[in-house]
């Protein structure tokens, strides 16, 4: 572990307790989305469009309605026609009308798998059989699948009502929802004076988060108008807001109970099934559960966008960056909202770039609307910038490590899109890798049949702060229960509880955390943006401080002294005036009844920003089978700045998991899409995520450069780890095979082609 300054002293933070919810999860008792079982519950099924782009000319549900075992049938006409408006979901802002249309098509389908109707039936198979009885007539339209087609003059326009924003100008009849530009200095003049300028165009595949748990939602719309939703989501309050907006029901009539969540990575922020289950429930008078099948998850939920990224970088004769430009184009899917802004923030964030221009385009195409996917938009952009840097280093004969260190962004550096960095760990991560045994090791040389190479790349994710609430209840036995509003995807109950425990002077095990529903905890933004341990942890610290403060008042009452005479030191309440007076937290808690009753405190925060985000540097060794193009990952090391690792095991786990997801994206994962917009490989079999046999152990180095924006120095760390892998692998592959690839997935077929090109000298 690299520590760059004198750390605070901690008793709980930095230890590795067993997670509180672990026991339920290893016993199979934890209740995930589709594990919800309610009295009288029936099962929903969704009819999805076979076409990527078509007008719906007729929907006849009468035969399905007449089928025995069917309780309710719905289609777009059963959803209110809501007006266009901003739907602020904490990290992203969607449009209400578009969201309604995405959840259930009204008069037009705009992606394959677009819901057009749904049924609720006595059991799953009856529901699926009933779908076959729904008659839908379509007028098939030309699908717009490629970015080129979507952006071409005279392109088929997917949404007639879409008003594009081209650098602030309104544009009608377009598929380009947004064109942004971020500019500083004079890149053209700087390029002209540069010793070396390199420009390349990269293509990155649309990729799915690949969470193992499919979306599943259950809803009960009671006769009194109250709607209860049980759902697997990263954003229970976002679900509440969306269901309220789409169904035009009062926000407070909706209670969202987040179940355990079987992975999300951003993909479980949007609402898909909840309003449909609610409408079916209202019609049927019963709770309705809908579970997506895996094909629907691939076809109709929101993966990360694919795109085309052109990057240009100039350096002087010392290798110092003079200027950089980028043109980032992402396919948002059927509605606007590709993650172009974080792409702009991240693409050159690892460097000090004096002259910069970044254009970005959010382009609508006839595929499912993309969603956040771990460091949204940034792995794609960084694949381009860091692979370009790898090639630039080859050209100028400089080691990538030296290049990074020479140009490193640090405190005070202006991020290319504007903000100035506070204290960050970019340089510390580079130094950590530089000092690693892996970096110092010698790569086994290539042989005739096995080509070996090493590559590195850095990456950045800013993350967010935002709003969170945490309630702590002191029990009479001296233990505390803690309620927070962020679904726990990877151990955050524990990392939040540990921060409270640190303040309370209790062991982590004595804080019992639970994820509350939207009626039982104050507003909390989503589990996303690497914010949960960071921002909700801050709320937990706030709540714990309030508890200690109140406990001091109670102790003062018992000892019949002034509040100001009570101190909380090393977990003990002590009296400044009577040194023999000492209470442990437990002893004090046992006496609350005599002092005015229960102590329950809620900390609420609205944390501004992330404190500079988290940088990471990855190093990878690959081996390529010259005959087949197959790639083995021989060794992998990930270093990343955690600020302060609350639970180092779960920090390592985030590094490792992100690295392997990134390796999958780099090597094999893609949406293999037909010309008519059908994802052909919509199974785990053919989507080809890494298995346990495809990766080595992932070595980790936790770098700790304290975040000045968090009481303990904690940084959000969940997302950065997916940013460096693809360019690190690309650079390693180039090092191994002597030819560069500019497109993901860098699969065996493409590597063979590259090797053949090299052989023929083309």
């Amino acid at each position, binding site marked *: 572990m690299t520590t760059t300054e004198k750390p605070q002293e901690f008793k709980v933070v930095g230890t*590795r307790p067993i*997670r509180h*919810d*672990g*026991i339920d*999860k*290893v*016993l*199979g*008792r*934890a209740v*995930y989305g589709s*594990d919800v*079982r309610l009295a009288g519950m029936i099962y929903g099924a969704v009819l999805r469009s076979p076409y990527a782009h078509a007008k719906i000319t007729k929907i006849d549900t009468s035969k399905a309605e007449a*089928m*025995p075992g069917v309780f309710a049938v719905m289609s777009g006409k059963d959803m209110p026609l809501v007006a266009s408006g901003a739907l602020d979901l904490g990290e992203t802002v969607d449009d209400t009308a578009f969201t309604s249309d995405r959840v259930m098509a009204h008069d037009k389908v705009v992606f394959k798998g677009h819901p057009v109707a749904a049924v609720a*039936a*006595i*059991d*799953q*198979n*009856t529901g699926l*059989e009933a779908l076959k009885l729904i008659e839908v007539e379509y007028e098939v339209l030309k699908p717009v699948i490629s970015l080129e087609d979507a952006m071409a003059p005279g392109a088929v326009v997917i949404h007639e009502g879409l008003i594009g924003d081209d650098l602030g100008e309104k544009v009608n009849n377009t598929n380009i929802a947004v064109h942004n530009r971020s500019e500083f200095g004079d890149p053209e003049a700087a390029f002209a004076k540069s010793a070396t300028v390199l420009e390349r165009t990269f293509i990155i595949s649309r990729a799915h*988060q*690949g*969470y*193992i*748990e*499919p979306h599943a939602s259950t809803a009960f719309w009671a006769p009194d108008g109250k709607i209860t939703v049980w759902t697997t989501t990263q954003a229970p309050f976002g679900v509440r807001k969306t269901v309220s907006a789409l169904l035009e029901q009062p926000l407070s009539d909706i209670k969202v109970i987040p179940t*355990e*969540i*079987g*992975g*999300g*990575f951003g993909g479980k922020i949007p609402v898909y099934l909840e309003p449909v289950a609610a409408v079916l429930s209202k019609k049927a008078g019963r709770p309705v559960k809908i*579970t997506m099948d*895996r094909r629907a998850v691939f076809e109709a939920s929101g993966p990360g966008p694919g795109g085309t990224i052109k990057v240009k970088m100039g350096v002087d004769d010392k290798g110092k960056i003079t200027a950089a430009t980028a043109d980032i184009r992402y396919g948002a899917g059927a509605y606007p909202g590709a993650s172009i802004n974080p792409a702009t923030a991240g693409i050159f964030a690892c460097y000090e770039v004096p002259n910069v221009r970044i254009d970005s385009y959010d382009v609508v195409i006839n595929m499912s609307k993309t969603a956040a996917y771990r460091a949204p938009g940034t792995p794609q952009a960084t694949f381009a910038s860091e692979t370009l840097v790898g090639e630039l280093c080859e050209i100028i004969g400089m080691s990538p490590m030296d290049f990074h260190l020479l140009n490193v962004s640090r405190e005070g550096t202006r991020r290319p899109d504007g903000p100035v960095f506070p204290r960050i760990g970019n340089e510390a991560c580079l130094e950590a890798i530089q000092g690693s045994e892996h970096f110092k090791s010698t790569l086994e040389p290539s042989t005739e049949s096995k080509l070996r190479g090493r590559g590195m790349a850095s990456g950045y994710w800013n993350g967010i702060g935002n709003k969170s609430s945490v309630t702590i209840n002191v029990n009479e036995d001296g233990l505390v229960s803690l309620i927070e509003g962020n679904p726990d*995807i*990877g*151990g955050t109950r524990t990392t939040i509880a540990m921060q409270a425990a640190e303040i309370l002077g209790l062991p982590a095990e004595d804080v019992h955390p639970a994820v509350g529903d939207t009626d039982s905890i104050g507003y909390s933004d989503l589990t996303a943006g690497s914010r949960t341990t960071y921002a909700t942890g801050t709320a937990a610290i706030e709540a714990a401080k309030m508890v200690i403060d109140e406990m001091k008042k109670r102790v003062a009452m018992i000892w019949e002294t002034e509040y100001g005479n009570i101190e909380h030191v090393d977990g003990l309440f002590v009296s400044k005036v009577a040194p023999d007076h000492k209470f442990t937290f437990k002893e004090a808690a046992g006496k609350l009844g005599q002092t005015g009753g229960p102590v329950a405190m809620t900390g609420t925060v609205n944390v501004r920003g992330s404190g500079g985000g988290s940088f990471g540097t990855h190093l990878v060794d690959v081996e390529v089978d010259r005959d087949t193009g197959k790639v083995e990952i021989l060794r992998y090391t990930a270093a990343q700045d955690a600020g302060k690792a609350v*639970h180092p*095991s*779960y920090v*390592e*786990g985030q590094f*490792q*998991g992100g690295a*392997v*997801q990134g390796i999958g994206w780099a090597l094999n994962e893609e949406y293999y899409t037909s010309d008519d917009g059908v994802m052909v490989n919509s*199974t*785990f*079999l053919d989507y080809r*995520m*890494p*298995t*346990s*046999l495809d*990766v080595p*152990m*992932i070595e980790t180095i936790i770098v700790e450069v304290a975040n000045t924006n968090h009481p303990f120095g904690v940084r959000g760390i969940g997302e950065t780890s997916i940013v460096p892998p693809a360019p690190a692998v690309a650079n390693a592959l180039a090092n191994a095979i002597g030819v560069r690839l500019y497109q993901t997935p860098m699969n065996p077929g493409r590597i063979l082609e590259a090797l053949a090109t090299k052989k023929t000298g083309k």
Partner: protein
Amino acid sequence: MTQTPEQSVRKVSVQCTLNGQPTEFLAAPYLSLLEVLRETLGLTGTKEGCNDGNCGACTVNVDGRIVDSCLMLGAEAEGKTIETIEGVAPAGGLHPLQQAFLEEAALQCGICTPGFLVSAKALLEREPDADEPRIRLWLAGNLCRCTGYDKIIRAVEKARDEMK
């Protein structure tokens, strides 16, 4: 159509041993063992990730062999001895694998965990000395998207060593 599918094909009665208990159930013949476990018997610890045998989240042990319960009919359980995640722990305790998964932080979201545990238990029962490559091969039918597998492999190794 005048009948629901459930009515047009009569349910079948099945007797088996489930997590050590003699168990009898009635189920439509076309339901998978996974559906029967989850819907008919309420054992939701066995998870559905793909429903086509490519993720292993629904792994259960049938007569000593691990199978994807989505790729077996419930009706086929007749006479079989089946163990699900709910049967892995001894009464009042944890199996060493479960303990190791907790200690090694081998789960993040936890949805794949039951499948991994059932698979790994079968491996260690058959091959108490399984090494890392063998563990990786045996678990290749279980997808995990959160951990990158590192801590899962370490947990299985730890349990292996403790079970000796």
